């Protein structure tokens, strides 16, 4: 029976490290860490965890980091770690959890998300991709869009319509999609920054075994809610030091370039700084709530604020820099794994930040979610069910 205290877990890590060289081969080290239950401490024993309280995860992560151990490059597989894993844990069969969780956590298998569709937009449940039963398989046809990492992914979480005549939320089934299956075609989707972080994914009669289904047939919307809830938690959960985000870039320019300063811009920089610090403290408070086991609905607030802030700060930076603020670095079509928000030019930040209020739920959708789920305001009259 493991000792579920911070000290107990530190002891476990120490014991693990005495048997496994953190400087050794990366993948074997990560596999061993998973097998020792030190991957996700709150996951069950045998699935990378110890059934320990979730807030002790940071203790373990810090202990490994201090020892110089390799991490699992979490940002490279954020869909897998943040969304697929909790969904697999909650809705997967024992075989599915056994098959998928270990290589997911170690980063050997990257995951992507096939939810969004061009015609559905914000109305996720309005999806048109069809899955038709054929013996032990499902045959999937449709088009998905805004899929990050699809060109690197081994697996995807996929929503497809299986009962076209049912009300739209009731005819959807949730699958794990094999991205190497015949009929899966991935094309880069170039965005207004010139690069393509995302993809369009075309599914043409893709055969998926019924063993890749997650949850019951036609019950996929309920499964998807687990995924989406975890998306919002993930967004709100990143801790930042003061001036840790874009505001830090702006503050640095302000300090280093006194010749750019004007009284009018000073007022704007200070306002932005205040808003950034408020948003940071809100994210910190959310994290403290999660750690205390009282998750609040502030994740949506944090995402909304961060989107608005990034847009405002980057827009201000362009104007502060004047002529120099209009100089871009490169319009070449490239395929970055994630946006380089702090490293590139102000123009890049300004343009990329436009996406913050669209991706992962538009700001309009988030406001509606807050109004209805947090404040309990009535829904609008529905004409689509």
């Amino acid at each position, binding site marked *: 029976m493991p000792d579920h205290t911070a000290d107990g877990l530190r002891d476990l890590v120490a014991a693990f490290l005495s048997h496994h060289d953190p400087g050794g081969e990366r993948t074997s080290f990560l596999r061993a860490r998973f097998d020792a239950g030190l991957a996700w401490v709150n996951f069950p024993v045998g699935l990378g965890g110890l059934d320990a309280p979730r807030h002790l995860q940071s203790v373990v992560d810090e202990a490994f980091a201090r020892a110089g151990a390799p991490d699992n490059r979490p940002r490279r597989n954020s869909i897998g770690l943040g969304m697929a894993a909790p969904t697999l844990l909650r809705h997967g069969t024992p075989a599915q959890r056994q098959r998928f969780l270990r290589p997911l956590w170690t980063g050997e298998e990257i995951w992507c998300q096939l939810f969004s569709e061009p015609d559905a937009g914000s109305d996720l449940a309005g999806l048109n991709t069809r899955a038709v039963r054929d013996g032990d398989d499902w045959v999937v046809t449709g088009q998905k869009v805004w899929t990050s990492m699809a060109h690197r992914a081994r697996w995807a979480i996929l929503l497809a319509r299986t009962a076209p005549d049912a009300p739209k939320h009731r005819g959807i089934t949730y699958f794990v999609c094999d991205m190497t299956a015949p009929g899966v075609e991935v094309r880069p989707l170039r965005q207004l920054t010139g690069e393509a972080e995302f993809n369009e994914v075309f599914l043409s009669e893709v055969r998926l075994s019924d063993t890749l289904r997650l949850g019951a047939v036609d019950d996929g919307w309920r499964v998807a809610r687990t995924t989406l809830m975890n998306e919002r938690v993930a967004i709100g959960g990143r801790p930042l030091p003061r001036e840790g985000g874009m505001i830090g870039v702006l*503050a640095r320019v*302000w*300090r280093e370039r*006194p*010749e750019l*300063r*004007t*009284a009018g811009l*000073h*007022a704007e*920089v*200070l*306002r932005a*700084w*205040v*808003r950034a*610090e*408020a*948003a940071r*403290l*809100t994210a*910190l*408070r959310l994290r*403290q*709530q999660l750690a*205390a086991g*009282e998750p609040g609905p*502030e994740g*949506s*607030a944090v995402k*909304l*604020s961060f989107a608005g802030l990034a847009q405002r700060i980057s827009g201000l930076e362009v104007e502060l820099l004047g002529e120099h603020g209009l100089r871009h670095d490169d319009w070449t079509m490239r395929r970055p794994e994630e946006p380089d928000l702090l490293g590139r030019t102000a123009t890049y930040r300004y343009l990329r930040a436009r996406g913050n209020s669209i991706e992962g739920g538009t700001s*309009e959708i*988030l*406001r*509606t979610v*807050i*109004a*209805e789920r*947090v*404040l*309990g*305001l*009535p*829904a*609008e*009259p529905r004409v689509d069910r």
Partner: protein
Amino acid sequence: MTNLLYDDDEEALRASVRALLAAHAPVSGTLARVDGDEPYDRGLWARLAGQLGAAGLAVPERHGGAGAGFREVAVVLEELGRAVAPVPYLGSAGVATRALLRCGDAELLGQLAVGRRAAALAVSVAAGPDAPPHAVVVADGPVLSGTVTGVADALPVDLLLVPADDGLYAVEADGPGVRMTPVVSLDGTRTLADIVFTGVPGRRIAAGEAATRAVTDALVAGAALLASEQVGVAQWCLDTTVEHVRLRRQFGRPIGSFQAVKHRLADVWVEISEARAVARHAADRLAVDHPDTALAASLAQAHCAAVAVRAAEACVQLHGGIGFTWEHPAHLYLKRAKSGAVAFGTADRHRAVLARLADLPGPPPGA
């Protein structure tokens, strides 16, 4: 690390204060009160101090207080803000108490702690930590003369802490030579007064640098704690508006089902979530006397004051005509919120403080 949550004791304290206010200070009563001769609720003050010991939360037990701290004072202020309660709690249990703690005046602290007396720092409502008041009151030996205008919550208290040119003095509010004139004030639940001192005997409780520091730190405390009151004001405005728009029907629907209403209230909720984190941070830093307290307090006023104003403005607007009437209490909150945007210094002045504390200087001179 800063603790931005409420612990169990704080939640229990909140519940007690809320129950007391619900029983004894409903908003309808306060609304009637501002039209009368006595805007302050002395009975409520006695209950808060006597029944709950709230007046002495920040006073150490050895001085007769509860030995809790400013985090708890902040929780009480959230509830008082939510009720727009007409009691001098912020000025007495917050600002004056902080000044007396700095001065180490055990006797007065003890009196304040049990609510036997209430005190006000005799400075303009607009005085902030960036600009501690000039000593408009001049001490001649232990005798004070001079004028201070626009002092908040001075009318209902019996003790004045008066900054003079050679120190900080304690003065009996109803003593000889003190003339207090009520000001027709925007906020009827926290009125202002002009005070003229003419040869008033006072007791010096701090001198020189110590006095200056006591006044400045008291104003920092005021700025930090007012933020929690503002969270309470904003929360009442949001809750009341949500309730209204769920029930009020137009065009055959509750108006709360219209997106324009929903999204505006969602924005208010987001802002209150942020204001709460910022206000808790300020209270927490103040409670442990952290070096970041001044920064946290200015951040709090640079952010929370406007949140309360916007929440109150949304409350009036989304109540439509009803919210514009005297008979609906929304205006009490609007007036408290807008007055709060001036109290302890405007957001603009606090941003100037932050420019200094966060190393974001303005343009070089002559630019």
